[in-house]
């Protein structure tokens, strides 16, 4: 690869616990990306590091800048600042090369509805750098899609399956999926994820996908990034987040000021729930719990957080910081 990207380990957050990541190279390296969409700043100084071979969940609420980032990554939108490196290629100067080993499935279906399945397969084959006819036929059989079917007559789920067969047929080293399962029923979603994980991630390829469905992200993602208002809130391995991010539910007999809890080392956020408090803690939750007991806490419960809870906590924390006019997050790494 040209312009060999820096290692994943080297790009880790400064204060993050030093976890080893087995794959050193980056499939996508976004550095200080700034994008303007509809005359508004859609993405601001965004830096992402997508390790080769990982399943990378790209999360954020509506309007966070996910699709803008993905479209910029694919060369469909201009970037106003920063750089994007895909599989070792700079997308601004090596656009065609960067797309040779990249597969993309759009949020909204982008297949040619006037074609028959066989025509669309042939079109895609001719437009692809690599092609595995056997794999495509196997998928068409599996999904019960006939070559003579008209694409426009297929159901949304079948179109999604056809798009998946086509994208896998080009054997991409990097698969970019923008809300790939939106509109699919739970069974189709399960099957889709199952095929993706089996065919792509097990072959050592990289998946970069955005989704609103946090349970499916949690199911398959190795690394997640959460974006809000065009800024990165966090980027880390999912296991690492779960290991080091905990919630502590605490109750006191005597009233306690929020700021007394906020100054405890490791406490990132304090939320009052009646007479109880919910603390979001990064790092040693036991040490924080011990500190709370010293302060006279009646009950202290350490709770594991799932991705949804983490997502909400990070977003709430971000918004509270913005509302309290505290200095904006300078980079994804500054929180760690």
């Amino acid at each position, binding site marked *: 690869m040209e312009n060999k990207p820096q290692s994943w380990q080297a790009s880790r957050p400064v204060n993050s616990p030093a976890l080893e990541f087995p794959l050193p190279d980056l499939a996508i390296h976004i550095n200080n990306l700034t994008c303007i969409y509809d005359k508004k700043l859609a993405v601001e100084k965004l830096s992402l590091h997508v390790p080769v071979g990982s399943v990378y969940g790209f999360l954020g609420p509506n309007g966070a800048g996910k699709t803008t980032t993905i*479209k910029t990554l*694919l*060369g*469909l*939108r*201009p970037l106003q600042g920063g750089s994007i490196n895909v599989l070792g290629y700079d997308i601004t100067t090596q*656009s*065609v*090369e960067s*797309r*040779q080993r*990249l597969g*993309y499935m*759009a949020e*909204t*279906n*982008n*297949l*040619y*509805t*006037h*074609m028959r399945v066989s*025509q669309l397969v*042939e*079109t895609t084959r*001719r*437009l*692809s*750098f690599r092609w595995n006819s056997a794999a495509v036929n196997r998928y068409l059989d599996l999904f019960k899609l006939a070559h003579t079917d008209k694409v426009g007559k297929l159901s949304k789920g079948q179109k999604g399956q056809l798009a998946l067969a086509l994208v896998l047929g080009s054997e991409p080293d990097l698969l970019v999926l923008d809300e790939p399962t939106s509109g699919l029923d739970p069974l189709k979603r399960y099957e889709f994820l199952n095929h993706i994980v089996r065919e792509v991630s097990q072959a050592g390829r990289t998946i970069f996908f955005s989704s609103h469905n946090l349970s499916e992200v949690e199911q398959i993602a190795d690394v997640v990034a959460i974006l809000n208002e065009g800024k990165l809130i966090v980027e880390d391995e999912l296991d690492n987040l779960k290991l080091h991010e905990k919630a502590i539910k605490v109750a006191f007999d005597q009233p306690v000021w929020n700021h007394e809890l906020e100054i405890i080392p490791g406490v990132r956020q304090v939320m009052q729930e009646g007479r109880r408090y919910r603390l979001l803690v990064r790092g040693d939750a036991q040490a924080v719990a011990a500190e709370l007991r010293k302060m006279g806490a009646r009950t202290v419960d350490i709770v594991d957080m799932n991705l949804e809870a983490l997502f909400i906590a990070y977003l709430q924390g971000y918004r509270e910081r913005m509302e309290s006019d505290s200095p904006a997050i300078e980079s994804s790494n500054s929180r760690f």
Partner: protein
Amino acid sequence: MWYKEWLTVRFKLVLMIAVYTLFGGALCLVYSSRGTSYMKLFDYWILIGGVITLMIGVLGGLDTFSDEVGKNTLSFLLTRPVSRRKIFLSKVGLYGLGMIIIYPLISFVIFLADHTPHYFNNYGYLNGNYCNQEFLGVAAAEMINTTNAIIATALVLLAGLGGLALSTLVSIFTRSAMQTLTVTLVILLPFVVALAPAIQTTVYSIKFISFSNREDVTDFLRIVLPEMLLVVGLYIAGFISFKRKMF
């Protein structure tokens, strides 16, 4: 790329051939039922066929990009390892090539029909005078008419290709064929009206140009080159717009 475009363009090409054949056939039938005319069959073909060719060009480019933008399929193409130059070339190239082959071919057939002795009238021009071709001598009349026919065919073809280039350029910025048609006509109509006197002069100069003063190549270039440059300019503008436009 060409395969994908062929799947779309082939129906348009069949339609193009059908329109030209029906129009050419109808013209021959109507013309043959009339007596001696001031205008020859080929003149009608150039004048009315010219308008049809311009519209065929415009209609051919209406959905070049707008349809893909409207249906959100352009991302399918743009995320493949294919340069925008190839995408643009295949999109306008196949239909344009169809026009370049089909229109002159049918023009040639009409031209031959026009020169069938005793079927249509056999009058032509020499030094601006309307004369019987038998009087002129077949060779001289053929030379005049052949040169005129080539220049006129080239002009009409360029008008059609210009229409294709213009609607293709417009379709880059619109989201449906109807939007493209509206904008193209808004641009085209004042343009045609403004250029009408110049077109009339050009047609007149082709038709009445003195045989003795004719310099075939020079005339061809003098008359055709400006239009050719305009059409090439439109294609370049379309290509640059497509290359820079973010979808």
